[in-house]
């Protein structure tokens, strides 16, 4: 263990290399440029491949190719670039290829701006591209998590043969914080047990990596298998952090950078003996419904919820679907570079 | 001495082999194959050169050549 100072972007890049990622392809876009720069500098030393691709499309399809032959592969981008990558993500979901995609979100729609935002929540948690599929989505809240979530993301990707999205934002990417890094490689995982990978057909029948099924009924069968997998993931992989859920009368729901601000608000209100809690979804898909069930069954009382986002009511939908009308849900959202402040949150809670 | 064999059921009847056989030994067959196509057939007159032109141009790998 070593304590160092790093930006969230660099921490994600270093975390990926520590996780055994040996292929990175990306295209420059702010505010995530520290990731490709770090990869360009460090991937060759790790014996991996770094490619600055000619486009976001090329980058994600390079990741497709690297993943198809069994390498731990990743790309990173920011919102407009992630929109372009959706084609490749859909193909990887269809071909069941494991890979990690980092989205350091910025303001939108369109070219938007380069300030932090969380408005890619829908794009990440719903099938962002065409077809019925899901990516596993993890949302780090601080730099240590940005680092720690990378091995988790690669493990999940391999375990379920599914793309995993790390959903951060410009604030997380650019913030510099001290973090603990492992000094010995924690994973020696490349190509182990990937019997489906393309390696040349020596001693076996040829492998085919594809998402195309023309014969009547075949694609439906593939979809049913995918749905079964998603159901398993939903049951097993919900992740969240709960704060003061035992006695809270108001529970804020927030993730990523927004959750940091909400945590500060919760702590300030607690100092004044206000019974406020926090649910911080860490896995955005699967959405941590269990966190809400816990509140309902344990407390058996009416708790009010406040969803806070750096977007205009995207995660709000998942909270409402989860609560299914059983509790009052308030909302505070800003985007396009605007970030709800601690004071705004506190004043909103007072009005609930 | 040479001859060819034709996998009639793979034949799609494009007739390219017919047009390139220097001895005119391949003809459209009467009747249809399993695909419902008028396939080609080889007329072994002993004149086959084993030149493989028919096999080389066949898009469906229907022809094997013996010499």
């Amino acid at each position: 263990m070593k304590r160092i100072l790093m930006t969230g972007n660099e921490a994600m890049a270093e975390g990926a290399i520590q996780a055994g990622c040996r292929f990175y392809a990306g295209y420059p876009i702010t505010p995530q440029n520290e990731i490709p720069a770090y990869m360009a500098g460090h991937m060759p030393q790790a014996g991996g491949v770094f490619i600055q691709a000619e486009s976001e499309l090329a980058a994600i399809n390079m990741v497709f190719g690297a993943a198809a032959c069994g390498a731990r592969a990743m790309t990173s981008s920011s919102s407009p670039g992630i929109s372009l990558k959706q084609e490749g993500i859909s193909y990887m979901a269809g071909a069941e290829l494991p890979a990690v995609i980092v989205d350091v979100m910025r303001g939108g729609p369109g070219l938007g701006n380069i300030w932090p935002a969380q408005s890619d929540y829908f794009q990440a948690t719903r099938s962002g591209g065409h077809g019925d599929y899901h990516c596993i989505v993890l949302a780090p809240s601080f730099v240590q998590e940005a680092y720690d979530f990378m091995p988790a993301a690669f493990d999940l990707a391999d375990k379920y043969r599914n793309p995993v999205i790390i959903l951060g934002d410009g604030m997380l990417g650019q913030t510099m914080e001290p973090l603990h890094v492992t000094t010995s490689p924690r994973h020696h995982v490349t190509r182990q047990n990937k019997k489906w990978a393309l390696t040349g057909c020596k001693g076996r029948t040829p492998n085919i990596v594809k998402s195309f099924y023309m014969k009547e009924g075949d694609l439906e069968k593939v979809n049913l298998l995918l749905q079964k997998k998603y159901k398993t993931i939903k049951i097993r992989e919900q992740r969240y952090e709960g704060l003061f859920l035992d006695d809270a009368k108001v529970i804020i729901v927030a993730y990523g950078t927004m959750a940091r601000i909400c945590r500060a608000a919760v702590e300030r209100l607690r100092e004044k003996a206000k019974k406020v809690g926090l649910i911080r979804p860490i896995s955005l898909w699967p959405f941590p419904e269990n966190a809400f069930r816990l509140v309902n069954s344990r407390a058996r009382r009416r708790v009010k919820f406040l969803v806070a986002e750096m977007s205009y009511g995207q995660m709000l939908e998942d909270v409402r679907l989860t609560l299914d009308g059983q509790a009052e849900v308030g909302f505070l959202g800003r985007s396009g570079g605007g970030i709800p402040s601690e004071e705004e949150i506190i004043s909103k809670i007072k009005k609930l | 001495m040479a001859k060819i064999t034709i996998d009639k059921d793979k034949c799609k009847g494009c007739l390219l082999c017919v047009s390139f056989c220097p001895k005119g030994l391949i003809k459209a067959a009467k009747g249809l194959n399993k695909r419902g196509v008028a396939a080609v057939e080889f007329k072994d007159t002993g004149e086959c050169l084993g030149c493989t032109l028919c096999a080389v141009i066949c898009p469906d790998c229907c022809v094997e050549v013996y010499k």
Partner: protein
Amino acid sequence: MGKVFSHSKSLRNISTHYCAGCGHGIAHRLIAEVVDELNIREQVIAVAPVGCAVIAYDYWDFDCSEAAHGRALAVATAIKRVRPQNIVFTYQGDGDLAAIGTNETIHAANRGENLTVIFINNAVYGMTGGQMAPTTLLGQKTATTPQGRKPEEGYPLKISEMLALLAGVKYIERTALSSPQEVMKTKKAIRQAFQNQIDHVGFSLVEILSPCPTYWAMPPRQALDWINNVMAKEFPLGRIK
């Protein structure tokens, strides 16, 4: 009597979905023959396109990946970089390589990726019903150029000549499937493009003028003659680089 022409090992002995007289079947076979002759079947990783040859992996008997439309060379770049010991090739049509995938094509070539590219130019989109391709000839009628392609719809794109300008490109040859003799020349070029990869020479591409009797609305033999008499005038055969 011994067999002097038989079915190649690297090609599954099944019927293809291609139309009668289509050049894809010949090109598939030539690749399989070269793979057998170079004894690289167990090392090959192919990347199939989107287009008529989308299920080429059902016909070849070696490892193969699909790629999204136009992205074959991005996929292949990564495969070769991750597994340099394998022999990696893409098989792409004119729409895939020279329209929707132009960017991937140019940049893989410009990086000088040690890849083999088999480029099937039949001047038309086959899979989707015979629309105009980037390589459609002026005056050629397609589903989307019912009066024949006009200059304002673009000139036939000579992507091979464009690629030849790039320092990363080591070998480009244009051949045709217009007669048994031209087919044999095509095989020789394919073999060269694979041998180049084995010898670490670099980016090698064979553009193959290939018949599409269905969407050229011609009997198969006439389609071959059209390649020789018309198409090869616009796309001259021979070594480009």
